[in-house]
């Protein structure tokens, strides 16, 4: 049972195609397991459709009508778009589909994790826009208090963490903006999560803040 969802504004932006890739990835993975949010996105897409209907039309070139009629008779081109990797060949079956496609053929443990302090290791994901990473927090470890310069979306994949906002278990999403300061503490099983950021994190205490460039957070 999922208790924490992305904000509606975040889901609206996902429907609009306006989320930076790193954040869209987190929402996309959450949607795979959340009927409630798929419904909100579908509602927002209805708004998109209604807006299309009320847009000021911008005429196509005069020859467009004839050209489209000619194209109706042509066979559908095949094999144009690259096929996503066949999921059954990929490792990490416990993870969301979109994440598995991104991770490719290497198992989670064989990926290039790097340490980010005593209780946290990070796996940077190549997403091209914003920054996305897997974060693996050791059992019972407390992440230093921090806020965010932009927005951070975090999807819990395994284990759990607790902070002032509540208990976050697999499927839950923390949708945090710069006004929120938090100190997540991993549960006894530790916590594996997927984070998408549209701007670097801002730590409160002096030391971790100085360390930020090293961690790439």
């Amino acid at each position, binding site marked *: 049972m999922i208790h924490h969802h992305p904000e509606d504004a975040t889901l609206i932006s996902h429907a*609009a195609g306006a989320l930076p890739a790193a954040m869209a990835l987190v929402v996309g993975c959450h949607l795979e397991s959340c009927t409630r949010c798929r419904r909100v996105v579908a509602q927002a897409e209805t708004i998109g459709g209604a807006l299309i209907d009320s*847009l000021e039309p911008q005429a196509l070139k005069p020859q467009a009508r004839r050209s489209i009629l000619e194209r109706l008779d042509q066979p559908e081109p095949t094999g144009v778009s690259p096929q996503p990797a066949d999921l059954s060949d990929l490792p990490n079956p416990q993870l969301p589909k979109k994440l598995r496609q991104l991770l490719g053929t290497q198992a989670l443990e064989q990926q290039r994790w790097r340490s980010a302090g005593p209780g946290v290791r990070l796996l940077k994901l190549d*997403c091209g826009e914003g920054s996305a990473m897997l974060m693996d927090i050791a059992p019972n470890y407390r992440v230093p208090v921090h806020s965010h310069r932009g927005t951070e979306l975090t999807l819990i994949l395994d284990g759990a963490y607790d902070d002032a906002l509540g208990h976050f278990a697999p499927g839950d999403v923390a949708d945090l903006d710069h006004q929120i300061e938090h100190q997540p503490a991993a549960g006894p099983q530790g916590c594996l999560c997927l984070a998408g950021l549209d701007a670097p994190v801002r730590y409160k205490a002096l030391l971790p803040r100085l360390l930020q460039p090293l961690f790439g957070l």
Partner: protein
Amino acid sequence: MADTADTDNQPDWAACVARVAEQRCRDSFMQLFDHYAPRLNSYLRQQGASAELAEELAQEALLSLWRKAALYNPEKAQVSTWLFRIARNLMIDQLRRERGIAYDSAEAADEPVMEDEAPDATDAETLRRKIATLPQEQLTLVYKNFFEGKSHAEIATETGQPLGSVKSRLRAALQRLRGQLEAEVH
């Protein structure tokens, strides 16, 4: 409803798609083309596509409709919603390729919408009327989000509003348009 908007005079688009699916009816298809291609063109231009690319993608979206018409289910989505999803995914595929990792397919026409997640497709007219009555500040945000493809942070910077206000206004717009969402979160 007593007040009749212009949109009430529109053809029954779902019936047009049905005729395309069942009879390969070109007249119905061209009706859809004449109405939607210039609007999708407009949408794609505002997303930043060049004049040439926008026209190409608008035609591509309508070709998708021609090919996939049989998959369209009027109970699950308005024709405009269906075309919006197709055009949005074409836009992502061509203009915001890195976002493709988050969407299931470039061919939105193929994406199934599950029974329990489909919003009521019968009230699009009401929805269009409600959009027209949104406060200007909400309408501007919805517009920037949907048509200029801007993120919350970009909209906040551009309009000089705090990020929190941008989000709460977008949320208010959705609630106003769609009525009560079933789950109140946070």
